[in-house]
């Protein structure tokens, strides 16, 4: 018995004696690699700290926190009694869903899909140096085209959904292309034209929907909304109805995220995207280096419009909860998703991947706004918070870039007045 123990003991001793040098050898080989990895990670982070991306991230965080703090203060001032409950709901956002976390996340993703696309629309135009404020009109026209195919295109059979999505994209493309044409051809500022086209699109869509031909076929006269699209035209649930039950989430979120990745590659890894960015950074330099800058401006606005149109199509074709479908109400009001795209794109610094996360945040507090209403807060508080965030993100980039200089800033502020006076005196003296 003792022999056996000794044998086992020796065996392990030998094994140990063999293992230790082996491990030491391997360790000696691994250690420099690990050190390299460690250094690389450290370098990555220290580099990342210096990049525009990090600054943009810090700026977005700063803008978000200022917006939320001001919103919370506002709530505290107007209704101190319910403030605690209201603020809890504001922060919980998605988690307020009575059907649980899963349903909440599902609803968040469902609401995000069209917003991701309008955010991408604004961000894409930004990259080419254009401010597409007309995403709303493009969204509406895309939605309208998708509705037409989704209701009237019965003969298309199983292709009806794809046809409807493509029709929405085409509608948005057209509605973005016209301001793009005006900018490229006649140098009319795209902000004015795309704003005008928000109204033209809205009135035109409402006018066409109430025209004699479409009134009976597409519109439900009892509530002045469009009727629901055909079953064949609705977006599939995919596996989401099991993953996030009770939320109505369909595969549109996958399409939206896929589009974001596609746009990222288009902008960063293709000649076309690089040319568009070159036009955005310096129109004249791009022209000098052989880029057709007018074509770039036109295509940039048109693709931007196409993205917003896709957003509208995905919204209206969504099956929603219990396959009830969505409808468009015929009112003379500009739809909001297009305008939500602007803060989203700015928060993301026009980075297509960042747009996805910025959208999740915006959808999150929008859900909070709905939940806040039952404790006596109007949901416009959330609109104000988003607008404040947009306001601060307009200059937060400048703030974060000078984060190191913030101490100097106060000194300079004191000194500024003195130097200013001196400068003026000197100049007057020269005269």
């Amino acid at each position, binding site marked *: 018995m003792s022999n056996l123990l000794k044998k086992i003991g020796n065996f392990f001793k030998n094994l140990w004696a063999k293992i230790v040098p082996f491990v030491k050898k391997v360790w000696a080989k691994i250690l420099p690699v690990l050190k390299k990895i460690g250094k690389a990670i450290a370098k990555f982070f220290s580099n990342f700290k210096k990049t525009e991306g990090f600054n943009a991230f810090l700026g977005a965080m700063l803008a978000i926190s200022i917006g939320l703090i001001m919103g919370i203060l506002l709530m505290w001032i107007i209704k101190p009694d319910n403030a605690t409950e209201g603020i809890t709901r504001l922060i919980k956002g998605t988690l307020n869903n009575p059907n649980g976390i899963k349903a909440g996340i599902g609803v968040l993703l469902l609401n995000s899909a069209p917003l991701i696309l309008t955010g991408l629309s604004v961000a894409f135009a930004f990259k080419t140096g254009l401010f597409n404020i007309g995403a709303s009109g493009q969204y509406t026209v895309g939605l309208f085209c998708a509705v037409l195919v989704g209701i009237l295109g019965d003969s298309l059979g199983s292709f009806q959904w794809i046809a409807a999505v493509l029709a929405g994209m085409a509608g948005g493309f057209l509605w973005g292309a016209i301001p793009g044409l005006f900018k490229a051809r*006649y140098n*009319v500022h795209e902000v*004015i034209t795309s704003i005008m086209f928000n109204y033209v699109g809205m009135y*035109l869509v409402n*006018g066409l929907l109430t025209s004699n*031909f479409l009134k009976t076929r597409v519109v439900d006269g009892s509530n002045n909304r469009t009727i629901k699209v055909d079953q064949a035209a609705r977006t599939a649930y995919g596996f989401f109805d099991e993953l996030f039950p009770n939320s109505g989430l369909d595969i549109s979120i996958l399409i939206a995220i896929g589009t974001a990745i596609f746009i990222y590659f288009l902008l960063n890894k293709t000649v076309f995207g690089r040319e568009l960015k070159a036009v955005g950074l310096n129109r004249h330099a791009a022209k000098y280096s052989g880029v057709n800058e007018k074509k770039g401006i036109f295509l940039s606005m048109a693709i931007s419009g196409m993205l917003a149109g896709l957003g509208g199509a995905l919204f209206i074709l969504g099956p929603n909860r219990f396959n009830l479908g969505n409808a468009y109400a015929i009112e003379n009001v500009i739809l909001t998703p297009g305008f939500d795209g602007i803060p989203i794109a700015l928060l993301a610094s026009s980075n297509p991947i960042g747009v996805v996360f910025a959208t999740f945040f915006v959808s999150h507090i929008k859900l909070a706004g709905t939940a806040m209403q039952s404790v006596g807060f109007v949901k416009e508080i959330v609109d104000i918070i988003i*607008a404040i965030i*947009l306001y601060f993100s307009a200059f937060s980039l400048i703030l974060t870039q000078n984060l190191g200089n913030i101490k100097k800033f106060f000194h300079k502020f004191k000194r500024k007045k003195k130097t200013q006076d001196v400068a003026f005196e000197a100049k007057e003296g020269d005269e």
Partner: protein
Amino acid sequence: MVFFISQSLFFIIPLLIVAIAGMFSEKSGTVNIALEGLMVIGAFCGTFFINKMQAIGFLEGAPQLLLIISMILAGIGGAIFSSLLGFLAINMRANQVIGGTALNLVGGALAIFLAKQFQPNNAVQISYDNSVFRLNSDFLADVFPNLNYIFFKQAYLTLYIGILILIVSTIVIYKTKFGSRLSACGEHPEAAQSVGINVYRYRWIGVLLSGFLGGLGGLVYALPISVSFEGTVAGYGFLALAVLIFGQWKPMRVFIAAIFFGMFKALSVTFFSFDWISDLIVQFPNVPFGTIFRILPYLATMLILALTSKRSKAPKASGIPFNFKAN
């Protein structure tokens, strides 16, 4: 026709005032795309004040005085709101187009939020009685009944205030030291600074004036055309911006541009009062005339801009932040 002209005045005057508001800001070198938001805030302040005062019967015997007070309040509201743009554009040197868009969103949300907060039943509509503000004068009624109807019976005091603003601002821009200095800050701020003009101060004055007139214009827009304000001015601030560009940043040309667009806009609400259009509607029942006339002002704007944008005379430094230290 008389009805049409009387209606178009309701659109021309606010367009004129708001475009002049934008002119002061752009002349000083700050692009003011927030005109829409300024109008909403001004209209909210003015109509809310009128609503409350009419409820308690304040100044019931002197409605014109009440109107003037509420116009001043609307202006002050706009000026305070525009200081947000001034801080962003002048002090922080941020992107003015994005900042202006943010203010447009804040303006719309804030007006609805405040209306819901301070009105019974969370109502968005702020209702008011605008008939008491009509001039209702019988001046010239015997000799020129049409003129009397347009300018004295149906008209509001705002018509004359608008024309006064036009005349005063023309004089200020072209005939005063202040006006020349303001334009200098928008054309070539470095040159202005080199002769001892405080560019920051002039740009601030430009933005605040713009805010005051923009807010006032918001009330002037909301008052005659409806009996309640619902937190929106229907893209009117942007139309005013287009009027400003069409008017080439010159007060008198802005006035002509405002007449042009005001008439188009009035046509979209009064087209049925013309006999020949009514005949057309009967003849072609399938043509959606309502939609066409609604879209027409926007399309006309775009066409006119396409024709005039090539030789645009915008203030050269408009939209470019001024940095004192860099000089």
